[in-house]
């Protein structure tokens, strides 16, 4: 697990020194501990921005828009020539394979009729792919070959195929009409996103309410029905459990005690948080105390889990210092010598 190259070694040393720098704050706040905090926050934010750009803005906005622009201005004749050549090649290959096939198979292939609509649908799926760059004849060929390979269109009769292709070209556009609307939608999204930046300008800050409302509206609209079902309905349903659990040997006392404890806990904790009237009688006070006991047990378990989690993080760092920093550095130089 130690460093393999000199660059790795430098990385491991930086990580080790930063780890020690963070832990130095246990003694007292020093320049080193402040520096490591600043480095951590800076690197995290910097990388977040880069990752968001590369995984969100670039593939979803920049690249599709660039492709749209390029496909809009591509030479129509070059595209149709590339398509004709590729379809011709595919048809030739199909004819050859049909000729070399057994008599039975040849009859079966011949019996299949040429479906023009299906042929057009395959061409559409290959040529209107959002990721396709039409100026690259190679990409066009690959896209067509993969689309026809997974389709059941009978391309054995070359003359029919080429005739249908010419018919297809009469209506073919390098960019379909739906793509223009899609570009409008992208622009709308970008403008909505940019409105968030108006928060920096107090005079126009009100504009940021539009994207905020849109985002919250979408989130609530999509999330509420599912959350209601999974976090309320199913949870309530799960609390309807038998108070007396039976097994083939009689009563399952452990399961019964568990279920009973769950029901009592649910009811008493809910009762504890019920503030609409004073709980002065003995029964109410008793139920409230039981509820508090359940809450304390829950908080205790959470606290114990918290210690476990924090200790795990410490263990992880010390493991790193021991294995990768000390042992890794030793082994790296031992290997060099």
């Amino acid at each position, binding site marked *: 697990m130690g460093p393999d190259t000199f660059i790795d070694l430098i990385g491991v040393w930086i990580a080790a020194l930063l780890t020690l720098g963070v832990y130095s704050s246990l003694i007292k706040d020093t320049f080193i501990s402040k520096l490591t905090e600043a480095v951590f926050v800076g690197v995290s934010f910097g990388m977040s921005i880069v990752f968001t750009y590369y995984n969100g803005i670039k593939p979803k906005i920049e690249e599709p828009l660039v492709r749209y622009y390029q496909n809009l201005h591509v030479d129509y004749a070059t595209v149709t020539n590339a398509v004709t050549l590729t379809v011709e090649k595919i048809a030739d290959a199909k004819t050859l394979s049909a000729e070399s096939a057994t008599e039975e198979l040849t009859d079966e292939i011949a019996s299949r009729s040429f479906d023009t609509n299906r042929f057009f649908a395959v061409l559409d799926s290959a040529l209107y792919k959002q990721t396709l760059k039409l100026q690259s004849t190679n990409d066009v060929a690959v896209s067509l070959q993969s689309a026809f390979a997974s389709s059941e269109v009978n391309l054995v009769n070359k003359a029919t195929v080429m005739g249908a292709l010419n018919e297809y070209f009469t209506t073919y556009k390098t960019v379909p009409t739906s793509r223009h609307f899609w570009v409008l939608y992208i622009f709308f999204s970008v403008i909505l996103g940019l409105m968030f930046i108006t928060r920096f300008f107090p005079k126009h800050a009100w504009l940021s309410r539009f994207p905020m409302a849109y985002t919250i509206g979408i989130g609530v609209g999509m999330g509420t029905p599912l959350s209601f079902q*999974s976090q309320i309905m199913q949870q309530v349903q799960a609390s309807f459990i038998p108070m007396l659990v039976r097994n083939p040997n009689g009563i399952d006392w452990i399961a019964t005690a568990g279920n009973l404890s769950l029901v009592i806990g649910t009811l008493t904790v809910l009762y504890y948080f019920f503030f609409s009237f004073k709980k002065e009688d003995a029964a109410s006070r008793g139920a409230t105390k039981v509820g508090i006991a359940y809450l304390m047990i829950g908080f205790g378990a959470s606290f114990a889990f918290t210690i476990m*989690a924090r200790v795990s993080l410490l*263990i*992880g760092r010390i493991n790193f210092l021991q294995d990768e920093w000390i042992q890794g550095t030793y082994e790296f130089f031992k290997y060099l010598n």
Partner: protein
Amino acid sequence: MKLFLSRFTSFWKNRYRAIIYILTFAFVWLALINKKPLDLSVSDATQGALDLVEKMPENHRKKIQEQEELLAKLQKEESVQSSAELASQIDEAKAYLERLKINSNGVFLVCIDFDAGSDAELGPMAYASIRHAFSLGIKVLINNGYTVMAQPLSQMIVDSAALGGATMPRPYGFKQAGSDFVFFGFRPNAFQVYLQMGESVLSAYETDYSGKPLADMPIMKGIKDIRDIDGIAAYSCNVGTPESWINVANTKFNIPLVVGMTAVSVSDYFPYLQSGQLIGLITGLRGAAEYETAVGAPPVANRRMWAQLYTHAFAIGLIVVGNIEYFIKGKRAA
């Protein structure tokens, strides 16, 4: 003696924090020297997570069989009375069956939603479950949820499980990106991405993390939408984020779901396990150690369990000492 005690008391009062820190460090360090794995029994919550992967090939074959039966039934119906609706149902069933047969041992989605801060706990469980799936010939999809910084970390975990180093032996050999697994990477707005996966995985993720188009990858020929996935494991460091998977995967699409959480957040998810919305729950380092022990993965988390044991014993000792001190002080004050 009195002088010694008073000097010790003043020394302790001034430096007790430093002493406790140093002792904790020492306990952890000493424990990590012990390379012997700790003998652990697998809890029911972890067993559920193990079963999801273990039984996936078998369940996938059952799914294929059911789909074949459904197709045969539809074709029989069509032979009696054909209709456009029936024809489209048959086409759909055929396409689904073909997709199921492509990834014949099942498809497992691993959502890595944590950064380096939680790697110590969640890294080993994600690594062990990916290795477990690989060893059973299951195809693995890996994505990131809400945590942007999960991407570089996931890349390391995936590379390590698929290609690995000499210290991490893989009985299943090398795994090929695009054929055996695919790493989608991070996309903003995880909840919308999960929902979009319900419509089409390719529209949610057009490319993998490195920008290679997914449509050209052999593994993706068998995956159209989230229904083609046989099970999901979400490893998350944030409270509230696995709920998105519970809402989408479990409630909306009824896909078996397992969650792995840091110990600090795990108590919020036991109700979901009890209600059956989760079929497994891996709890922090202990859960990871149980998982890797059960599947025979390299003991990364298990080795750390000795340190957990020692530091917990130390913490309990400190609590006892603190309580004794409290009662003594209380008596003196009285």
